[in-house]
């Protein structure tokens, strides 16, 4: 995430404590879109992502004294958001899953057709991909976020997720295979995955 200098963040938080509306607007405008992007990658609902984002920023602004400036503000915010995401997951029945799609089966289809998106209009493709990402396991969604949104390298992303580098690479590979399979299914085609 793009971060403001830590001293500026602390200054803005102090001003927010003094009810300075301009300071809260400034900090909100910088971090809200980025935090929403992060949260939206971790949950499968726009409404939930919106709620968790605002909740997390509210906690950060309200408990401003807890931010000690030793880490980036975005890291601290993501920590707050992660707790809210966990709480939210406990409150929902179950994650959406891709029924009948198995990673082992997908592994057998290494030479599959990656041209599936050519059958979709540009706008449709983005929405269809997001819908399929929503059905991925959380670990795969998180891996996509750190590499595709934050542009983290292999070592940095695996450190962030606290997993071995091999696991991260596998998660990313499985994720795009699953998305492809999801898109093929959504298009009602019978091409793509060859089941062993």
């Amino acid at each position, binding site marked *: 995430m793009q971060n403001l200098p830590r001293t500026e963040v602390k200054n803005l938080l102090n001003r*927010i404590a*003094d*009810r*300075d*509306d*301009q*300071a*809260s*607007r400034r900090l*909100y*405008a*910088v971090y*809200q*879109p980025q935090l*929403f*992007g*992060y949260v*939206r*990658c971790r949950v499968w609902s*726009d409404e939930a*992502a*919106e709620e968790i*984002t*605002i909740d997390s*920023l*509210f906690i950060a*602004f*309200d408990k401003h004294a807890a931010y000690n400036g030793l880490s980036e503000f975005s890291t601290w915010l993501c920590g707050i958001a992660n707790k809210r995401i966990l709480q939210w997951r406990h409150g929902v029945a179950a994650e959406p899953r891709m029924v009948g799609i198995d*990673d*082992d089966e997908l*592994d057998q289809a*290494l*030479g599959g057709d*990656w*041209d*599936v*998106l050519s059958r979709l209009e540009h706008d449709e*493709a*983005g*929405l269809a*991909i*997001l819908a399929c*990402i929503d059905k991925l396991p959380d670990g795969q969604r998180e891996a*996509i*976020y750190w*590499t*595709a*949104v934050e*542009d*983290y390298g*292999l070592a940095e992303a695996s450190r962030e997720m606290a997993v071995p580098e*091999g696991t991260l*690479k*596998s*998660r*990313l*590979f*499985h994720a*795009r295979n699953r998305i*492809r399979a999801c898109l093929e299914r959504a298009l009602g085609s019978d091409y793509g995955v060859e089941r062993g």
Partner: protein
Amino acid sequence: MESSVVEKNTEEQRLRLLLPFYLNNTVAPAQRAEIDAWLATDAAARQELQFLRALTAAVRQPGSARAPLRGYEILAARLSAGRPALSWWRRLGTARWAPVTAMAALLLSVQLGWNYWRLPEPADGVVYRGVVARVARAADLKLVVRRDARFADLAELLARNGCHVVWGPSVSGELWVVLDEPATAEATRRQLARSPLIEDAMLLAAP
């Protein structure tokens, strides 16, 4: 399960696993060269990279397309609801009222500065609506003048001894005078008492 793909470790699979990092420009130059060579010869690999590009664009969309202040009013309302109401004088210091408070302080400063630099110095004595009323000094001596004394002789005597009439004469010939040199009041009194024009001279204040 997750490590099974890695274990295959075929050359092509090794490069395929690195594609997300090739796309975000974080692979080492040597690996980049290997992937470039693979992409140059494998159409399916190029399609897979294209697929990853579309995936990246899609996943970046929710954050990048979002209005910066969307939902801010909800947050602001929650923040203000969770705080006790400010007293009126503390509200003056909040951002909303700060310009008004600053303007009032500025105007007050200008007024005080104007008063200090432009208004006249306070005058000695009593001032009523800007007009200075000089207060007469309390008399130093009370003189009783002989009934046959000539005014011209009396005026000369008083002027010579530094005396100024502040009240009188009364019907019984009394004059109250102040002296140019109040410290010499007793000596002046004796001097005046010796004059044939003066019947009596009394000291009114201690020297």
